[in-house]
């Protein structure tokens, strides 16, 4: 009548059986052997400074408004640029991490960045190329069909959505550009 009485469940296997069957069973039974216990503890880290030297700031590095100052060390890959950079800078300068607007602007910046970068790549000797960059050729070399079907996978139920979500925005953007162009041409006539 568990759990409607005080009765506790029976162990499925005894301690001896578990110890014999599973390598290392019970090795960390004692919490003193668990490195994450207690959660907060003072440990030797290798740091030989009270506050780290400051990494030189090249350009204007964006930062969260929740920081008192630019952290002494930071990543320097892909500085802000273009329209996406402006959107991201606004997100950092105006909104705290607690505001949805902060994250929604950053996600918008990501989408704009993808379009900007794709368009810019068309003017280079190595434009974006969806076939190789998506790795979709591995569908042929790594059993795409066999891996998916007849294997009880939950994601197969909505796999039809993927091409809609990938191609859909491009079709919508194309339709919008076409409609806008047609309106302009008609107005000029």
């Amino acid at each position: 009548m568990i759990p409607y009485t005080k009765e506790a469940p029976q162990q499925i296997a005894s301690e001896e059986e578990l110890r014999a069957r599973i390598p290392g069973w019970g090795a960390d039974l004692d919490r003193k052997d668990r490195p994450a216990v207690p959660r907060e503890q003072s440990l030797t880290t290798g740091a030989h400074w009270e506050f780290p030297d400051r990494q030189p700031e090249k350009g204007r590095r964006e930062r969260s408004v929740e920081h008192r100052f630019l952290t002494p060390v930071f990543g320097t890959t892909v500085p802000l640029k273009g329209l996406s950079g402006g959107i991201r800078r606004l997100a950092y300068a105006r909104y705290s991490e607690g505001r949805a607007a902060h994250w929604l602007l950053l996600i918008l910046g990501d989408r704009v960045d993808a379009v900007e970068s794709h368009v810019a790549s068309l003017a280079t000797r190595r434009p974006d190329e969806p076939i190789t960059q998506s790795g979709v050729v591995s569908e042929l070399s790594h059993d795409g069909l066999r891996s998916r079907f007849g294997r009880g996978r939950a994601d197969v139920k909505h796999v039809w959505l993927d091409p809609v979500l990938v191609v859909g925005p491009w079709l919508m953007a194309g339709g919008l550009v076409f409609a806008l162009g047609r309106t302009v041409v008609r107005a000029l006539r």
Partner: protein
Amino acid sequence: MRAMVYRGPYKVRVEDKEVPAIEHPNDAIVRVALAAICGSDLHLYHGMMPDTRVGSTFGHEFIGVVEEVGGSVQNLKVGDRVMVPFNVYCGSCYFCSRGLYSNCHNVNPNATAVGGIYGYSHTCGGYDGGQSQFVRVPFADVGPMVIPEWLSDEDALMMTDALPTGYFGAQLGDIEQGDTVVVFGAGPVGLFAARSAWFMGAGRVIVIDHLDYRLQKARDFAFAETYNFNEHDDVVVHLKKITDYLGADVAIDAVGAEADGNLLQHITSAKLKLQGGSPVALNWAIDSVRKGGTVSVVGAYGPMFSAVKFGDAMNKGLTLRMNQTPVKRQWPRLLEHVQNGHLKPSDLVTHRIPLEHISEGYHIFSSKLDDCIKPVIVPEAA
């Protein structure tokens, strides 16, 4: 150097990039020997993590050889073979001085809610990652560790995130002898969490996923009882039935942001990016654990809000425990486990992919082709 470069959602390629330079006196430059693709890299790849910039290089799981050190580095020298925890951390701030290395306050100007992570968007500090031939490693005296000679490269690679995160997840569960532990997700972190739960004296370990080949691995590697949630109308009810309608003592969410199993949650998060993540596994954990039980979360979620069933958690009196893993704290004990033969971390590696073919590696891992569990990237083959 050759490096993986993000080109927008679902698109990556390999490009020539500048070899990283020393930018701080305690930096090191590491020549990458092996890197891995992590399940959480897929959140970046799918465009879910805010401020993931085109042109950045992913990869927070890597090992390599020290190529150059900055002027203040004392603990490493050129030529050392090192493993690098996925956390970038200073070792001296309020949080690091309390052992919370993953919550360092001195390395991420872009956010205060998360520390620094290699190759994990500007939300995590804007550092390039290790899916490349070279990588900049800040605070070289704090994070990296010389790999013991007896430890293989692939075992060391698993020590940089997947194994410590699974082990940490089991510890967050505060497991007591004889506890029933249910792990959601049979990816590398879930498999390591399930295996680690036994170290802490679990009496029964159950793993839930929808990929049969991974559930097979959970039985073989983690000695777990397994169930495919896709074969049950309601996996929470099933878990109640097999635990005498009590529920598990501990539930571990080792899935995170892209959990499947609920179409609305999946579309609004993974597809439309309107949530920080699809908390299907987390909600199942909350609902399937017993009243007064513990839910441990090591699956990664984005910083936006998610539709979590918090009322059930409150009404059941649950303890919710979570964090990014402070990796280096786990190493001494984990090295003992590996050396004592309690587990072999590289048993989960299924694919070894040259850096030049990394776009295929991402697709194989993302689409779960060819029974992929853990893909390893080999830069020298570039």
